[in-house]
């Protein structure tokens, strides 16, 4: 199927995450011609993951541009474009190559509104695939979302399903401020689900409750929700009903959904692929300690990647948290008294 050729508005029987992203971009570009796409190999090649497949043919080379190989530029160009009234959506080919762009994000995109007191703004989206699990070469598998969540003035959004990728990307594009949109590439083609291509955004700045339960709260985002939900299903077989929360927008964090859930369950495990220390789980655990301590019936646990350099593919599965680790932590937490 050529995702770009599907009719906007039609209800497709199934899309994977890449196709959902492609449809969201298409829908946004049809509705708003101030949207331009920038990035390496996003034109005729449709992006190395095909997220922009067919878009240059449809919207032309002015609106879908291949840039030279230069990540500082890919983050910096949109700042200029956005300040001039465009809505750039730029793609960093892999998160591993985003680091030259950090200067632009920290020093410019994130603070243009603040430093000009709203005279100039920066409605840009920077998309980047991230995370492990696809046996990719060196530097292609890390999860460094916490670094971005540390930066004041940007939003950090991570979808965990095709439908949320579709709706959240539309929300990110419509948003008047900069959004770092991190796409868990392990999920790109993992699963298809019906996605209504109606151009409707999903709310950012909100967690999504993926499963109701009253015994324990499992908090995660991105690719690790797969293992988290698997663990929740297995826990159900053991008589433990887990509530599963997809954080989705790391910054700003919707802590109240998490606090409400933990208020009900009294127990919480946070699961992420990124290294433990300074990972975004630390922020959630700290907020629970600050704001939810009296509701807690057990210590908060974190299941995370090790504090090591991400191994090359042969040992990758020994780095990424697996269902067993999630289950072990959840069992300990659920049975703690």
């Amino acid at each position, binding site marked *: 199927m050529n995702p770009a050729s599907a009719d906007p508005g039609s209800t497709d029987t199934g899309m994977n995450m890449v196709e959902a992203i492609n449809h969201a971009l298409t829908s946004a570009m049809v509705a708003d011609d101030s949207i331009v796409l920038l990035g390496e190999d996003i034109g005729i090649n449709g992006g190395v993951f095909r997220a922009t497949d067919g878009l240059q043919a449809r919207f032309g080379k002015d609106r879908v541009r291949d840039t030279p190989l230069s990540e500082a530029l890919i983050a910096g160009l949109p700042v200029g474009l956005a300040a001039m009234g465009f809505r750039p959506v730029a793609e960093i080919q892999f998160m591993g190559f985003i680091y030259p762009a950090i200067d632009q994000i920290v020093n410019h995109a994130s603070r243009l509104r603040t430093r000009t007191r709203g005279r100039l703004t920066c409605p840009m989206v920077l998309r980047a695939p991230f995370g492990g699990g696809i046996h990719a070469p060196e530097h292609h598998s890390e999860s460094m979302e916490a670094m971005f969540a540390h930066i004041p003035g940007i939003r950090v959004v991570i979808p965990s399903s095709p439908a949320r990728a579709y709706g959240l990307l539309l929300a990110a594009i419509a948003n008047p401020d900069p959004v770092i949109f991190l796409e868990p590439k392990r999920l790109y083609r993992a699963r298809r689900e019906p996605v209504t291509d109606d151009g409707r955004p999903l709310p950012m700045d909100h967690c999504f409750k993926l499963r109701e339960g009253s015994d324990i709260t499992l908090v995660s985002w991105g690719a690790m929700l797969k293992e988290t939900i698997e663990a929740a299903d297995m826990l159900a077989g053991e008589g433990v009903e887990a509530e599963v929360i997809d954080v989705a927008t790391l910054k700003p964090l919707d802590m109240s959904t998490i606090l409400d859930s933990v208020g009900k369950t009294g127990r919480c495990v946070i699961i992420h692929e990124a290294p433990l220390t300074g990972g975004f789980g630390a922020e959630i655990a700290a907020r629970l300690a600050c704001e939810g301590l009296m509701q807690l019936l057990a210590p908060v646990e974190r299941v995370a990647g090790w504090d090591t350099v991400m191994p090359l*593919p042969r040992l990758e599965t020994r780095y990424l948290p697996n269902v067993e680790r999630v289950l072990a932590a959840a069992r300990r937490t659920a049975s703690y008294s």
Partner: protein
Amino acid sequence: MTRVAEFSVDRIQLLDAAGVLVGDSPDVARDRNRVIDMYRWMVLTRAFDARAIALQRTGRLGTYASSLGQEAVAVGLADAMERDDVLLPSFREHGAQLRRGVTMNELLLYWGGDERGSDFSGARHDFPCCIPVGSHAPHAAGVGLAIQLRGEPWVAVCVFGDGATSKGDVYEAMNISGAWTLPVVFVASNNEWSISVPRSAQTACETLAQKAVASGFEGVQVDGNDVFAVREVANRALEKARSGGGPTLIEALTYRLGDHTTVDDASRYRDDEEVGRHWKQEPVARLRAFLTTTHEWTREDEETMIESCHAEVEAAVEEYLATESQPVESIFDYLHEKLPSAYAGQRGMALGEEGDR
């Protein structure tokens, strides 16, 4: 008006596409054994490449970047280098790495997702592959500075692609190397493509070599499918750097005959006609033609060599496939010289021990 500066860029070719010497014949071309030696490294590189792709296709190697068509750049450069010079490759210089003593098993381990592939048994000072494009160029300047500070006669050789020349760090590295007269040779291996982006979309410059001009040193173009010319130009640049003359940028004109990597499909963005045209320029056939006409290279010689290259590759593949994965604690044990005690808990958990958190 006064003209304050003028620049030009030369292109050097010694062996044309038909394998006929043009211009001055380099000494090495007259030495049959030396030519055969270079030819063998190129043939071996190509045999390795084909086997690596086959391994990837059958799930026994990770994503692999083929060097098909670019063997002369790698081998010509490495042939000109001294053992103690330092190579800083990007990820398509398999021929140079092999020629400098990296083993095929090590290359397979790296591309198969095992860190031991970057722990070279030979070429101990050479840098590992650099995947973040162009980010190794500043290291080359650092290596050059170290060599300069110690007063040694060695040179840092940094190879990157045409795409990499658009990156700031590449320019920053060239700029400082010019300013400090560092012993560095930069090699832009211009294979005309940066995945799907053609060279013409990277820069409005007529040549990549001229990017040296803004850094205050010489840039030169060479026919990168002509191993004699690559070797010659590299020799000159290396000698200049060795004797305190500072850096050079060599733009090697070559072509990526294969896909960008094993996960790319080049037919999406370039046509067969273009690729076919470049097959007529490729470096291995060119050198074979030269050997045949000049050094009585026979069909039997050719067959014997190909057979021995395949045997060498097969032996390496067997060794690679028989290599057990590293133990899980290796994830931790190279993080620091001595693992700080703070990591003991996580290391234990990774090993499956019940660690405290």
